C-alpha cells in the first residue's frame, strides 16, 4: 500500500497547486537553458551561413563579431592570391535599429559584394541582390516580404528576396545589402566617426573603403591552420579558422549571457528547492500525529522516509514534466529562439531529483524525531 500516493490523493488540491507552481519555476529554468542554447546556435548560425573557412580581421582584434574590426577593402584581393584559397569575400557587419510601420525592428546589416563570398546561403522567396543600389535581402524572421520597403539611414531600400538562417549572435535578423550601400549606411549613421576621421586627415572616400572582415573558402586539400598562420605574419591583419571564430563567438559574445543565465538558473533552482522543502516540511508537520501513530503501531523508519521522499520526488518530477510540456508548447511563440536539448532536460531532471532528495531531508529529519508517544497523548 503506497501511503505517499494515498496522502497526496487525499490532499490533491494543494499538491496540484504546488506542482503547477513548481512547473512554472522549472519551466522558466528550462527556458533559460533553452535560450542559452538558442544563443549559441544563433551565434554560430551566421558563421555557418557565411560558409568561410578563414576569417581575416584587423590585427589585434577578435572581430568582426566580438570586437570591431576595420581592414582595407583591397585585403580581399591579397587574400585571394594566397595559394589554396578558392573564393573570397569582403564583408561589413553592423547592428541598427529601424522602424517598420509602428514597430521597432533591430536588424543586423551585412554588406557584401554580390557575386563574391558572404551573401545569403539560399533565397527562399524573391531573388538575390542584382547589383543595383538600395536592394536588400532579409532573413524571413524580419517578417518582411519581397516588394516591401524599409528606411535605413537616409535611403529607402526595396526588399528583393528573403533568406533564412541569418541571425546575429544578439538574435537580430540579418539584412543583406551590397557592400557600397552598407558602407554608406555605416557612415550615414555615425557622423561622429566621420568627423574623427576627417580630423585625422583621412578622406571619407578612403575610410568608406574599409570592411569588417575578409572571408575565404579554401580548397579541400589546403590547410586552414596553415593559411591562418601565414596571414597572421602580415602586418595589419589577424586571421582565424572557422572553428576559432565559433569559439570566440560562443565564449566572448555569450560569456556574459552565460553568467547571467547561469545565475538566474541557479537562483531559480534554489527557489524551487526551498519551495519543495517548505511544502514537504509543512505536509510532514500536518502528518506528525499520523507519523507518530505509524511508529507506534510498529512501522519501520523506511516506511516513513518513503512516505516523505516519494511525495517530494513526485512533486518535483510532476512539476518538471508540466514545466517541460509548457515550454515545448510555447517555445515557438517565444520572442527568442529556444532550443530544448534532450540532454539538458535530462540533466535538469537529475538536478530536480537531487533537490527533491535534499529538500525532503528537513521533513525526514523532523519525522524521524517524532516521539511515538505523541500518538497516545490525546
Amino acid at each position, binding site marked *: *500500500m503506497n*501511503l505517499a500516493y*494515498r*496522502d497526496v*490523493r*487525499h*490532499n490533491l488540491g494543494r499538491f496540484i497547486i504546488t506542482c503547477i507552481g513548481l512547473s512554472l519555476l522549472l519551466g522558466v529554468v528550462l527556458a533559460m537553458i533553452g535560450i542559452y542554447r538558442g544563443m549559441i546556435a544563433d551565434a554560430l548560425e551566421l558563421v555557418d551561413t557565411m560558409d568561410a573557412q578563414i576569417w581575416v580581421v584587423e590585427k589585434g582584434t577578435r572581430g568582426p563579431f566580438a570586437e570591431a574590426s576595420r581592414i582595407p577593402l583591397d585585403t580581399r584581393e591579397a587574400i585571394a592570391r594566397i595559394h589554396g584559397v578558392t573564393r573570397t569575400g569582403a564583408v561589413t557587419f553592423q547592428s541598427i535599429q529601424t522602424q517598420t510601420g509602428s514597430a521597432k525592428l533591430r536588424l543586423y546589416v551585412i554588406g557584401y559584394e554580390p557575386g563574391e563570398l558572404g551573401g545569403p546561403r539560399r533565397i527562399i522567396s524573391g531573388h538575390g541582390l542584382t547589383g543595383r543600389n538600395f536592394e536588400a535581402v532579409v532573413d524571413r524572421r524580419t517578417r518582411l516580404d519581397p516588394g516591401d520597403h524599409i528606411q535605413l539611414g537616409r535611403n529607402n531600400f526595396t526588399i528583393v528576396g528573403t533568406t533564412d538562417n541569418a541571425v546575429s549572435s544578439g538574435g537580430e535578423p540579418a539584412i543583406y545589402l551590397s557592400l557600397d550601400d552598407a558602407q554608406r549606411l555605416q557612415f550615414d549613421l555615425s557622423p561622429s566617426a566621420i568627423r574623427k576621421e576627417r580630423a585625422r586627415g583621412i578622406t571619407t572616400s578612403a575610410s568608406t573603403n574599409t570592411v569588417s572582415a575578409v572571408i575565404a573558402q579554401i580548397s579541400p586539400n589546403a590547410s586552414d591552420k596553415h593559411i591562418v598562420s601565414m596571414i597572421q605574419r602580415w602586418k595589419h591583419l589577424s586571421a582565424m579558422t572557422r572553428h576559432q571564430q565559433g569559439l570566440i563567438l560562443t565564449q566572448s559574445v555569450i560569456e556574459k549571457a552565460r553568467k547571467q543565465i547561469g545565475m538566474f538558473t541557479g537562483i531559480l533552482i534554489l527557489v524551487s528547492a526551498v519551495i519543495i522543502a517548505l511544502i514537504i516540511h509543512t505536509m510532514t508537520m500536518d502528518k506528525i*500525529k*499520523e507519523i507518530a*501513530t505509524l*511508529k*507506534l*503501531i*510498529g*512501522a*519501520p523508519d523506511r*516506511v516513513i522516509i518513503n512516505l516523505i521522499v516519494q511525495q517530494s520526488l513526485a512533486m518535483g518530477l510532476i512539476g518538471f514534466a508540466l514545466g517541460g510540456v509548457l515550454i515545448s508548447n510555447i517555445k515557438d511563440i517565444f520572442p527568442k529562439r529556444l532550443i530544448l536539448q534532450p540532454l539538458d532536460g535530462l540533466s535538469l531532471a537529475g538536478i530536480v531529483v537531487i533537490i527533491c532528495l535534499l529538500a525532503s531531508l528537513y521533513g525526514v529529519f523532523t519525522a524521524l524525531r517524532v*516521539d*511515538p*508517544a505523541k*500518538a*497516545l*497523548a*490525546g
Partner: protein
Amino acid sequence: MQQQTPLISIQNLSKHFGEGETRVDALREVSLDIFPEQVIGLLGPSGSGKSTLLNIIGCILEPSSGILQLEGETVYDGRWLRSDLRRLRLEKIGFIFQAHNLMPFLTALENIAVVLHLAGYNTAAANKRAQELLDYLEVGNRANSYPSSLSGGEAQRIAIARALANKPKIVLADEPTAALDSERAGIVMDLLRKVAIDQQAAIVVVTHDEKIYDRLDHIFQLRDGKLHDQS
C-alpha cells in the same frame, strides 16, 4: 488461570522525569502481573502516572529502573534488551487511543490493512482479514469510508479493529470510551472482553469512566506514582 505465566509482568518499575529541582517521580516501584483473558483498569487522578505506565508497557517510553517482561520475555532490565522495539510492538501490542488516530488519507479498510502490510501480509490477505475485522466489529459496511465521514463510535471501532489486526497478545487502551456514550462504551468494553477471551490476550484500560468499572476484572489505582490494588 493465575498459575499461567503473566503476559505483562512488571517488577519494581520506576520512572522519573528531570533531575534535582525539576524531578518528577511519575512511577515509584510499581509491580504488577497481568494474565491472559484479563481486562484490567488503571485509574487515578490526573498526573498520577497512568499514561506513563501504559507507555512503558507499550515500549515507547524507557523506564528509569525495574524490570518489564512481555509474554515471559524480559524486554527491559535497566536497559532495553531488544533493539527492534517497533517490531515488538507490531507483533505483540495493539494500541487503542482516546482520539481514534486513524490515518485521514486512508479508508477504514486501508487503515487496518496498513498494519497487516507492515506485518508481511500480501494485499489480498490483508484486505480479507481487514474486512473480517470490520465485520467482527459490525462496521463492515463502512470499509470504504474515510475517517472524516465516520461517527465517533464507528471510528473508535475501526481503531479497535486496527489494534486487533495483528492478533496482539497485549492491548493497551488509553481512555478508549471517553468519547462514547454509555451504550457505545459498553459495546466497546464487551468487545475488548471478547478479544481477551478469543485471543488469550491481556487488556489494560486507562480510564476515568465510572460507567465501565463493573466490566473490569481488576482495578488498579495509581496515586503519586504508587500502585494500589482496588479489586
